[in-house]
């Protein structure tokens, strides 16, 4: 029988490998996530590091999570919210920002933008996670800490609103 310490070490090493792989797979997506929310490459990098530090502190929970990627986005969400509360929300960075700025929008997109801007925060966030970060229902539910049915119904409601706007044009 293997000594408990040895088993623990093996488990930790395996978990750390999982975290490392998750970091490599998600780094780009999370950088974009923070850039869009905070508009600064410097802040995005800091928040990315903080996200993975928090993940390492909770490494045993990653295995228990329904979706590791969703769990990671959930941590990123809290890290971003904490930054906003500390007043580190936005520091404009013209360099990377230029990559994200939209070309001159057409009428249809401008109207859609207005419709989405008027939606509750949670609904906008669900749209963002789905259409920009390609998270599934299950991953969004994990990230947001809400039931999957709620994610689905909020997303469908948002799309219905957009459709009404489209049909009214």
């Amino acid at each position, binding site marked *: 029988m293997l000594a408990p310490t040895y088993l623990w070490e093996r488990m930790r090493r395996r978990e750390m490998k999982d975290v490392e792989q998750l970091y490599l797979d998600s780094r780009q997506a999370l950088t974009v*996530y923070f*850039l*869009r*929310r*905070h*508009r600064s490459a410097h802040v995005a990098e800091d928040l990315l590091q903080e996200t993975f530090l928090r993940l390492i502190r909770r490494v045993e929970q990653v295995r228990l999570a329904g979706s590791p990627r969703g769990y990671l986005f959930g941590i990123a969400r*809290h890290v*971003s*919210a904490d930054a*906003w*509360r500390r007043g580190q*929300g*936005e520091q404009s960075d013209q360099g990377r920002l230029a990559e*994200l*700025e*939209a*070309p001159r*929008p057409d009428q*249809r*997109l401008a109207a*859609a*933008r207005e419709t*989405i*801007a008027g939606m509750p*925060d*949670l609904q*906008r*966030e669900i*749209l*963002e996670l*789905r*259409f*920009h970060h390609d998270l*599934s*229902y299950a991953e969004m539910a994990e990230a*947001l*800490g*809400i*039931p999957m049915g*709620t994610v*689905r119904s909020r*997303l*469908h409601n*948002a*799309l*219905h609103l*957009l*459709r009404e706007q*489209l049909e009214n044009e």
Partner: protein
Amino acid sequence: MMKPETLSALLMDRELGELPPDARELLEAYLALVPGAQFEAAAVARVVGLARETVCQFPDLSRPAPGAGRHPKIRPLPWLRSGQVRAAAVVVVAAVAGLWAGYQTGLAAGASGRAKLAYSGGDRAPGAEAGRPRYEGLWTRYRVAYDGARKGFAVEECR
């Protein structure tokens, strides 16, 4: 025929890649059979495409509203607060305990000390023997019992 809202929801799930393969196959077969459903499918695809394009082109939409911190927890029944739930639970437990106590007391009282009050059916005089009462309980002052042999009801007071 599928309800329009059900079809719309399934089509959205399909556009978002959330339908399991067997459900997707069934939906495709339905779309092939029902021509009107294909217009709905096209409309849903346009909306999903618009949402994707808008979200990707406007990064400011991803920023939280000013002063927003963590998102509020989703409550399935927002009008229920924990204090109300506790109070309701206490009332329910007390009611159940009262019902049980009443029933037990009624059973324990047995058939002693009853006064027979009235009798219906036939031409029997009041005070005739009645069968075993049907309703028992602490709060039951009177009991109604049917006497099959004499084909009538007797009302008796419990003491």
